[in-house]
């Protein structure tokens, strides 16, 4: 089932950042992800599509160490990733969550600063005695966090509690927090779910700017227009398996993809309803 | 060999006591993910309820063995259960239910508060009932003719009657539990709720009622254990729930918390381990003064090497 694409389209020929080979995840009798292989090269935006329940988020969880795959391996820059989210982050891979998981009672700035945790060194001794390193790092991280908020367009919201942010801003804040971990590859789980068209355009533009920073992006999305505008390459997952992988227009026109979507209960460019959670409703009220 | 068998029997009967209490921890945890610290006190209240029943029956001491076994013992068990189930349901209703959506820390702290409150309540006010003894120190538990004094003998192995009672009670309760979980509507609703409360609710299961059933079930078994404890040790006191509760929780973790069969197995294993530790650990550390330490050491070892317990715990998927 594993496919590699070498049809010389606009695909970046950079190094392979993420290499998942034959990843399989079973929960009891249920095979959520079956024998999926997927490469992401540096500087590339890859889309991951598929009907609900196709195993996209489960695959994300396998890639980021939240789950330990039943079989198969995930390599990052050629090295096998440790099955611990924290260590995955250190290697240079960060993610957002489908059902926004910000630290709700922290301010936007603090959220981003938590993202910097793995790139800072202040220890308990430094902090208790307020040694120079603590001071230096705090000032530097505050500065950097402000820059990141600026980058995603939230500079005015630095001292707003993240739970008080409108829904779209929360999604952007989650991206800023992920960027704070200084990733080489960013994994976005439905970054435009619940957004209005204008916000979606802004998100699209933001992802391009992230790519321009030199990061690769792997994005799960249901919004087909968004995906095919954005991605260099698209991988379609159906029932835990890779149905097809290739350049946007190839995937877009593949009859099997259309069938997979029509065959499922979901329509294609309606954003799927994420798990019922408050931010979703709040976001809609704000929109 | 006889010595080993003797210790095995001692351990099993002790373990049966733990198992009866452990079920209460496990069913409640399985459904609401709450460590009900006050469950040890529910066990204590079961014992005091049984004692109260005995007082109300006029402190019978000269009943025949048949009468005792057929009337007195069931009456005491029922009295204990009424007390423990009532208190357990009240704590659920007034202390835990309002906190069902609160952060995890809140119900845990409440449980500690309930535990301290119940202990102190019994200590301070049990003696206020006219004719009842003061509960500030241990109260001698009545002996039930037919269940105390005598013992069964198999070769060199001696089994005290209270131990027989405990083992028999566990056996009966296990059969009952199996039937309840697999064959009754409430039991199956309980299993469904513990696996997925939201879906269970959507399927029309009254989750409040299931939770109450879990508390009541645990409390009823704890009351049986309370009577068994009284018969075994000959006295009861307001503090007895603390250590017994801790041990029972250890048993529940040992078997895999949330797993009813696990609680029974865990209790028996813990009891045997304790009995063996006091018999076979050489030197000063094998004295009975250390047995509780070994039991808790076992708890920590289980958490290190097999946190899901012997029979597997309910894994909470939080992703």
């Amino acid at each position: 089932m594993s496919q590699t694409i070498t049809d010389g389209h606009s695909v970046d020929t950079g190094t392979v950042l993420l290499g998942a080979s034959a990843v399989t995840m079973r929960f009891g009798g249920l095979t959520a992800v079956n024998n999926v292989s997927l490469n992401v090269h540096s500087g590339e935006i890859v889309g991951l599509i598929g009907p609900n329940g196709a195993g996209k988020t489960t695959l994300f969880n396998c890639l980021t160490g939240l789950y330990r795959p039943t079989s198969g391996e995930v390599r990052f820059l050629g090295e096998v990733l440790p099955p611990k989210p924290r260590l995955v982050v250190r290697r240079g891979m960060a993610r957002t969550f489908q059902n926004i998981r910000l630290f709700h009672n922290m301010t936007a700035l603090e959220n981003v600063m938590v993202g910097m945790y793995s790139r800072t060194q202040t220890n308990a001794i430094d902090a208790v005695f307020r040694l120079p390193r603590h001071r230096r790092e705090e000032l530097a991280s505050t500065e950097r966090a402000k820059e990141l908020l600026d980058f995603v367009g939230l500079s005015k919201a630095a001292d707003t509690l993240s739970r008080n942010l409108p829904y779209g801003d929360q999604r952007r804040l989650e991206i800023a927090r992920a960027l704070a971990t200084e990733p080489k590859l960013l994994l976005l789980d439905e970054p435009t779910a619940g957004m209005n068209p204008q916000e979606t355009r802004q998100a699209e533009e933001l992802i391009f700017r992230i790519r321009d920073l030199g990061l690769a992006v792997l994005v799960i999305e249901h919004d087909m227009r968004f995906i095919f505008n954005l991605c260099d390459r698209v991988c379609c997952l159906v029932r835990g398996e890779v149905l097809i992988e290739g350049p946007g227009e190839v995937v877009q026109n593949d009859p099997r993809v259309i069938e997979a979507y029509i065959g499922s209960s979901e329509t294609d460019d309606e954003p799927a309803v994420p798990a019922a959670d408050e931010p979703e409703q709040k976001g809609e009220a704000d929109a | 060999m006889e010595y080993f068998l003797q210790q095995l029997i001692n351990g099993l009967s002790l373990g049966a006591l733990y198992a009866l209490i452990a079920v209460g921890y496990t069913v409640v945890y399985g459904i609401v993910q709450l460590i009900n610290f006050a469950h040890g006190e529910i066990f204590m209240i079961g014992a005091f309820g049984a004692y109260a029943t005995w007082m109300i029956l006029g402190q019978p001491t000269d009943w025949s063995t048949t009468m005792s076994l057929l009337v007195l013992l069931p009456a005491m068990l029922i009295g204990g259960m009424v007390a423990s189930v009532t208190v357990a349901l009240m704590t659920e209703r007034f202390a835990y239910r309002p906190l069902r959506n609160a952060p995890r820390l809140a119900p845990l702290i409440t449980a500690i508060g309930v535990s301290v409150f119940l202990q102190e309540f019994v200590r301070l006010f049990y003696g206020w009932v006219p004719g009842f003894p003061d509960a500030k120190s241990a109260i001698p538990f009545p002996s039930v003719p037919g269940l105390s004094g005598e013992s069964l003998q198999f070769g060199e192995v001696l089994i005290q009657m209270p131990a027989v009672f405990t083992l028999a009670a566990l056996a009966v309760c296990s059969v009952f539990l199996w039937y309840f979980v697999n064959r009754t509507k409430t039991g199956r609703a309980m299993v469904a709720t513990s696996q997925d409360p939201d879906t269970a609710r959507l399927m029309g299961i009254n989750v409040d009622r299931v939770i109450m059933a879990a508390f009541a079930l645990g409390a009823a078994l704890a009351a049986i254990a309370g009577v068994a404890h009284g018969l075994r040790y000959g006295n009861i006191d307001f503090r007895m729930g603390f250590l017994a509760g801790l041990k029972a929780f250890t048993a529940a973790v040992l078997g895999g918390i949330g797993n009813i069969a696990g609680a029974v197995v865990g209790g028996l294993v813990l009891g045997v381990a304790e009995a063996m530790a006091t018999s076979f650990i050489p030197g000063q550390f094998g004295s009975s003064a250390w047995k509780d330490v070994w039991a808790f050491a076992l708890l920590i070892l289980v958490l290190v090497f097999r946190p899901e317990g012997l029979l597997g715990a309910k894994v909470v998927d939080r992703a």
Partner: protein
Amino acid sequence: MNVIIPDDVKVRFRVPARIIGLVGCTLMIASIFMSWSYGHTVLDDVGYWGAPSPLQLYYAVLPVLGVLLLAVPLLGRGRLGRWAKLVAWNTSAKTCAIWSLAVTAVMIASIAIGLGGLVNVDPGGWVALAGALIAVASTLFLPDSPDPNLYRLKSPQWVQILAIVGVMAVLLFGAAYLLNFENADQFLTFGASVVGVVMVLRQFGIFSWLSIAAANNNRVLVTSAFVVAFAFPFTQNGSDANMSIASQVLIFAATALGLNIVVGLVGLLDLGYIAFLGAGAFTAAILSGSAFATIDWVPPFWLTVLIAGTVSSLLGLLIGAPTLRVSGDYLAIVTLAFGEIFRITMNNLDGNDGPNLTNGSNGISAIPDLNFFGFDFGKAHVIFGIDIGRFANYYWLMLVVIAIIIVVFMNLNYSRIGRGWVAIREDELAAEAMGVNTFALKLLAFAGGAFLAGVAGAVKAHYDVSVTPDQYVFLESAFLLAAVVLGGMGTVMGVLIGATILKLLPEKLRFFSDYRLLLFGLLMVIMMRFRPEGIIADERRQLEFHDEDDALAVEIQEEMRAKHVHLNPEPKEWDL
């Protein structure tokens, strides 16, 4: 109460309500010039006409406040400007009336109980009661004020500093005064009026302003707090009884603060915390050179303190390392078990069931007093002409320990590590997925908290003179937890207040000491149900406990913004 009287009625009747309320308050003030009791043996003798006793004077404070709260809006109608909105005139008047009634009730009950029946209550008491009832009834007709937002009020720094120093001075003399009441009825009356005044000021919005002032002038706050605490022994004029209570309060508060790092900052429930205190105490006792010590080595005290802390934190690692990997719930029960293991082990290390280290249940007694560079903690010293006894010496030492714990608490809280802890509390999985080493951070808090407990234990051993296993049992851990819960998880001020209340009340109200555990158990249940964030709420904790309250979230955000707490990583931005 809002259900009883419709809002439109309230608006219509607010002027007459204020006038009637003023009558009530005036009656209460007038009553202090009358005799309250037939006899002369209750309270501080309130049986004279025309000459108020000190307690009666304090009693008048609440009604006087009431007069101000009612008269100012009445006379200043239309001229209050923004002051009409900045503070909650009506709600605080209502609070004032209710507390006046409560204090009146306490006094009348004291007279009735102390002299045997209500017949002993003189006209003064009845006039006061009538006044209080009138005040309560009339203030119910006042429309509710909007929440006070006095924190928006800008004020010059010198005013803020003056206010902080003033509060501290009041605190010092209030505490000194309160401690001097020997009788439960006087203590209760005075205590209830103090609490009443505090509640009124709080409703009024003073505290929200003060907390901003405190946040802006942290150095002043911290310095003046310590000056006041340091000066306290001088107000006691050598009274050993009070200093003994005060130093016990400090030891208890220090331990509770350490526990608060674990419970309040990280959200881990540590039910064996007292065992870490005990481990420190036993370590210090064994190394103290007491005749009963089992190790014949007496290191200098600073080294003993370090060893005690290290022993405690190693035990913490031993317990925490396996448990913290699993789940927070297990930690609670494992620490509970650990507390029990500790007690049993200390009992067993008696040379009989194990090697002799602790003399078993007898423990180690005759621990010598500390001696720093010739300053003998066991002896009384005369400073500025005032006797400073043994307890005062330890009081000061504990003050230093508390200072250390507060510094650790605050500096960790406002750092990368503190942010990690909050993240763990909020969403452990997301924290881990953002690169936070959740296990290490939890272990750090757990072992660090144990270290601080060990340090406090080392001092406690010398203070207590003897160390026995039964001083360190589960109920003491529950008691500590109650102090944290009552005071406010995650705050320093709250826990200091909680610890003081829990330790002081049983000391002063002897009749209630047998019921204290019952009430504290109940207190924990009630607090978790109705005010889980405690008396002094940590903003973030309050939000966590009231997750669905969006209005509160906005309000708190504005207050935090006003304090600039979160944008400045500098240590001066502590928010006690």
